[in-house]
Every structure is written in C-alpha cells, then in structure tokens.
C-alpha cells in the first residue's frame, strides 16, 4: 500500500545509517550501517500499480464512452468504483488502501506479487554469494514492514516449503535465513479465510519454534516482531504465536511518537529498542552493549517535539480507540479500510491541533 517505487528503500537505509551513528562505536560515521552490510531492495509495488492502472484505464474509457454517447453508465461505474469496493475516500482508497485489498482479495494479484518477490530473493542471494572472496561467508536476513511482512512471509513460505520445478536449493531443508525482522507485522490482518498461508504453521519460524506437523524445518534462525503500542494496523490482529522459544523476539516498550505516522517504517526504526536489535544482529553482536542501550533508551524522549501536549493527548486517545476497535467480524476488510481512513484523520487532526507535530504523511504538513 502506498507508493514504493524502485529506490523506495533509500530513506530506510538513510535512517539506519543515521541511527547507527548515534551509538558510541559508530559516532560520526556517515554510512555507519550501509557500509557494513549489503542491502538488496525487494520491490513489488509496480505490479499493484499495473493492475490498478488497468482498472483505471478501463474505467476512464468507459466513462468517456458513456459521456460521448449519452449512455447512462452511472450504476455500472458506481458498482466498479464504489459498489464492490469500500465506500468513499476514493483517493485514499485508490492510492493507499487498494494494495492490501488486492493482496487479500485477489489470488491472481497475490500470486503475481509472490512469484516476483521469490525471484528477487533468489537472485539477490545468488548474486551476493557469487561476489564473496575466498574465506567469506554470507548470512542473509530479511527485513519487512507492514504489508511487506505479509508479502515476504508468503514468499518465504512458498520458497521454503516447496521445491520449484524439482529444485530444492532454497527450501528450508537446504537453506536457512539468519534473521527475519518484521516491523508492524500485519501477516494476520484480514478476514481469516483470506489469510492465504497460516503464519502460525508455515516454515517461516525461528529454529526454536516447535516442530511442524509437516516435518518441514524452520526457515530462519531468529524472528523479530516489532509492534508499536499505538499502531492500529499492528494491533488489530497482532501476530502473537506462543511457545516459539527464545528466538522469537518481541521487544516491548515501543510507544514513542516523534511523527504522527506511528505506523511509519522510519518512525519504528528511530526507536533504540528497534534499531539496536537490528544493528547488533547485522553488524556485530557486541556493537551496542546493554549498558549503552539502557542509557540510550532512558534518554530517548517518548514524545517529540514536547510542546504539543493537548494534541498528543487527543491523538493518542484516538489511536488507542482505533487499536481497541472491535470489528463486526474478524479482519473485516471494509472496516479495516474505514478505520485506516480514521487513522489518517486522527493524524491530520493532531497536526491541525499543533503545527509543531512532525508528519511524514504527504499532504499533512
């Protein structure tokens, strides 16, 4: 959902460089993170765009045709634009909320995206392995956010559990990822019948999770689940497996508001609890010692900027109410989209109440 064209990860990498340089070991370094790891962007947004464009193009032709020929197509157009899809806020819907709807609602779009992500993953791994010098080894971690957590989960689940054309080189029986970082995990979000692959029983689990009935091996060494306390998307149907052992890591205390978009990728990464886990696991397990982390977390302001108390209070109570929403049926897509719009409105209201609040949401400044 949203706009994530090729190159979308630059802002994420910049943020990781910035937060890494905050720690003693990396102070003053410009590319503290990106100079130490190799980053491969996975991009599937153009696929959603093409399906959306196909629809829009067809609808435009239909609308023009109807106008030119004095044929009443009002109901048809209404059906195609609004009737089978959630009501109103068409801009918000078409630009941001359509992707998850496509993902959950259309197996064709979902499989198209999944197939693309699987190929990008396999190519990325193979290319990096080819560039290693003698004596070097490669550990591969995957980091994903929001809809990306679901997309990546499904792509890994397919890649890990099914040989493709008889080839099992990247199945979980032959290969293992190091870390799977999920930021604002929404892999359960949506009506349960439309959750294509059950994330509780897929191979995308840490090695400390109980064995699967299918006898398939776990696909990653560790599984991180970062969930903000006021992020409704991550709270509506939170991913909370039980008994997955010490390598399923859910750090607590992520409740900061430095941007009205508490669901934002970079907003999550800004928190030391989130970024220290990533840095330590990807760069050096001893890069940020416990004492430094405690000190950093203690000094990290929960609300920034601090001078918007009333706005914070109102906005957070709206976010909390959204987090606690009881849906008429589990994962009702119509209600998720309506509440998504409500989240947008609450964020906008926050900025209207106090212009000092930071917003990474285009259109809300």
């Amino acid at each position, binding site marked *: *959902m*949203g*706009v994530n064209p090729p190159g979308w990860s630059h802002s994420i990498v910049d943020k990781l460089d910035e937060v890494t340089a905050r720690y003693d070991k990396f102070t003053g370094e410009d590319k503290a993170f990106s100079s*130490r*790891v*190799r980053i*491969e*962007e*996975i991009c*599937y947004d153009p696929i959603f765009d093409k399906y959306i464009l*196909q629809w829009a193009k067809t609808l435009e032709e*239909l609308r023009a045709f*109807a106008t030119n*020929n004095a*044929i009443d*197509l009002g109901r*048809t157009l209404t059906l195609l634009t609004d009737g089978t*899809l959630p009501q109103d806020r068409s801009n918000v819907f078409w630009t941001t909320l359509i992707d998850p709807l496509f993902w959950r*609602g259309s197996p*064709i*779009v979902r*499989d*198209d995206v999944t*197939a*693309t992500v699987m*190929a990008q993953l396999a190519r990325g791994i*193979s290319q990096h392995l*080819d560039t*290693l*010098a*003698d*004596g*070097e080894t*490669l*550990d*591969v*971690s*995957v*980091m*994903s956010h*929001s*809809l*990306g957590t679901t997309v990546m989960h499904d792509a890994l689940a397919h890649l890990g559990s099914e040989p*493709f054309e*008889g080839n*099992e*080189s990247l199945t979980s029986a*032959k*290969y293992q990822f190091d870390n799977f970082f999920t930021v604002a995990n929404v892999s359960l979000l949506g009506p349960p019948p439309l959750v294509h692959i059950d994330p509780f029983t897929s191979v995308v689990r840490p*090695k400390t999770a109980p064995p699967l009935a299918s006898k398939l*091996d*776990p696909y990653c060494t560790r599984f991180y689940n970062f969930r903000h306390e006021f992020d409704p*998307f991550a709270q509506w149907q939170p991913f909370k497996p039980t008994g997955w052992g010490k390598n399923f890591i859910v750090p607590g205390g992520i409740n900061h508001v430095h941007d009205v978009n508490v*669901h934002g990728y970079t907003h999550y990464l800004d928190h030391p609890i989130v970024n220290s886990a990533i840095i330590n696991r990807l*760069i050096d*397990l001893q890069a940020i010692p416990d004492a430094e982390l405690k000190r950093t977390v203690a000094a990290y302001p929960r609300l920034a900027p601090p001078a918007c108390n009333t706005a914070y209070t109102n906005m957070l109570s709206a976010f909390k109410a959204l987090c606690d929403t009881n849906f008429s049926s589990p994962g009702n897509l119509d209600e998720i989209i309506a509440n998504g719009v409500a989240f*947008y409105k609450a964020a906008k209201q926050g900025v209207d109440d106090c212009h000092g609040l930071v917003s990474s*949401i*285009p259109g*809300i400044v």
Partner: protein
Amino acid sequence: MWTTATAWSAAFLVSCELAGALAAPLAAQGNVRRDCLADTIARLSEGEIGAAWAGRRPGEVWSRLAPLRRQGRWGALADSIAAQFEQAGVTGEIGRRFAIELDSLRIDLGRVERDRDYRLNGGVDTRRFNLSEENDPVERFILFDRAGHADTVEVRDATPQPIRRAICWTAITARIALVAAADSARWRLVDALERRVKRWDNFRDKGYSMFPLELVLNGACTICRPPLEPPRWQVVALHLSPAIELAGQTWNDRARLDVLALEPLGLIRYNADRTWYAGVSAVATFASNAPTGAGVLAHVGQVGTAGYVFRRRDANGKRRDGVLLSLDLYRFISGLPAAFKQDRGAAVQLLEQCAGAMTKSACAAPANP
C-alpha cells in the same frame, strides 16, 4: 493526496557479510570471537596465527582447494576438509560429533560429484555447518543446532584454542564448500523463478484485461492455473468494454455504431508463455440509437476482438445485424486506407524527386520530422 500515510512498504533484504563487516581491533575481540568470526580470522597476523596454524585459515584452505572445485572433484574436496580436521586431533565428544557431520559432508559432496540430478536440483544441505553466535548468558558459537538434532557443538572462550580453531575454521571451510556445491542449482532456480515472472509479465501486459469480479473469479478457479502461475484459462464474466459495431441490412449499407459490449460469459486460453491467447465470449451490445444486439465474440490475442451480433427487427421491420470490433481492431482496420494513401503519396513524391535528381544523395527519402 494521502499516499504513504500508513506506508505498507515492500520488504527488503539485508545480507550481512561476516567478512569485512566490522573493523574492530582484534585485541577487543574475545578469544572465541577471534577464532570463530570469519572477518576476524582473515585479519589475524602471522604472529597471532602461529606456526602450527599457518596456512590453515578458511580463506587459505579454500584457495588451495580451487583446482578440485574447478574439476568438480567434490568428494576429494570433502576428504581434504575432513583431513584438516583430523590433523588437529580433536578428541572426546566434540570430536566425535564433528566427525559425524564431516562424514555427512563427504556423503553429500560425493553425491554432488556423482549424481547430476542431485547437483542440479539442489540436494546439498547448505545449513549443516552454519555457525550461530550467541552471547546470552555467555559468548559462544553453536554448530549443528537443528530441529530434532541433539548433538550440538559449542565453542566458548574457555574452549582450548586448538579445539576452537579446528572446530570453527573447519566449519567455515565446510560451509563455504557446501554453498559452492549448490551454486549451479541455485542459479537454475533463479532462472526458473524468473521465467515464471516473465510469464506473469506477459499475462499482465499482453493478456485480456480483467474487472474486479473477473479477478476474483479467475483467482478462485484452481483448475485454470497451476499454483503461483498466471492463468492458462481465463474466465470472462460480465466484462464491459466500448466497441464499434458495423451494422446494417447488407454489407454495403453498414454504418458505424458506438456500442457498449457486455460479455456475460466467455473463456480464453493462453499459450505456455502467456504471450498470446484466443477465446470466445457471448456478447450483448447496447447503443443509444439501436436495439440491443446479441452474438458471439472471438478474442485473438493482441490483434483484438471481433464478433457477429444479431438484432431483432426495428420499428421499420428491418433487421440490422452487425460486425462487432474492439476499438483497437477498428482503429487498425479503419486506419489502413489512410496509411496506404499516405505511403503511396510518399512513394510518388520520392519517385518524382529521384527522376529529376542529378546525384544519388539528392535522391533520398524525406527525413522524418
């Protein structure tokens, strides 16, 4: 316009390479980290390595094994790695457990050498010698920590250096060997996955467009396509499109009608690469100045759609059936005479120009603007 407020972003892959990952002073590393982190091992000085371990670091061993690798002598390569470990004389339970895994390495790599299908289909278990670093409660490196596998091996600061090195250095070399043995299979997998992506690209770019209802129907049709593949059969249902109908009583009096074509039901079949399709639909046409028509529509890939529509008699008792064409096809066909006329005009102009030309260069086709 709100575009990224909730930013359901795509995922991205971070590959962390041990070698070169961190330029920390060696002195700051604990004993076990100095002997088990690949990048640290690579930076050890000759003095730190010592005479007994000279030339035995993973990078050096792997370089020496290059000829065997190039010749595909994977069995001999495994023997060589195992021999290096045996030379270190690690005994006890750790030695026994490690030796068992080395036996598996020999079996695995021996099969890579002998069995082409095994090699090309990724039969090698590349996880076997993954070294996992943990620091809670103490710094250590763990091997063979797999589901249902109790015989793990741990190396700590307290582990004697010869054992640390024998375990970690051999494990790193073995891991590199396993990954290398799986190279060709992995690239074959990449090729196969990318061919599938190409089929999806073709389907999306060259296939017959789908409305929401059709997306749902075709997605639910499990016999229309193999798992994760684009449809081989596509159901057309309640598909609306503008079209042109050439309607009249006879071929000579046919007039253009702008119609809305509704295909209540149809079926399309794609070729294997999804670059081309053909199919048939029932069709109804609606126009503002003619009775509703009904007929059959044929789909022929990128060429377009064409069909025949029957109409009931109008108020004058005349029946004006029609030939139905998609907009693309109509534009193409109706554009042919003009294009021909334009080409003919250009040719005549060129002939006249050349007839009066004194030199070959003066007789040239007019440049495109």
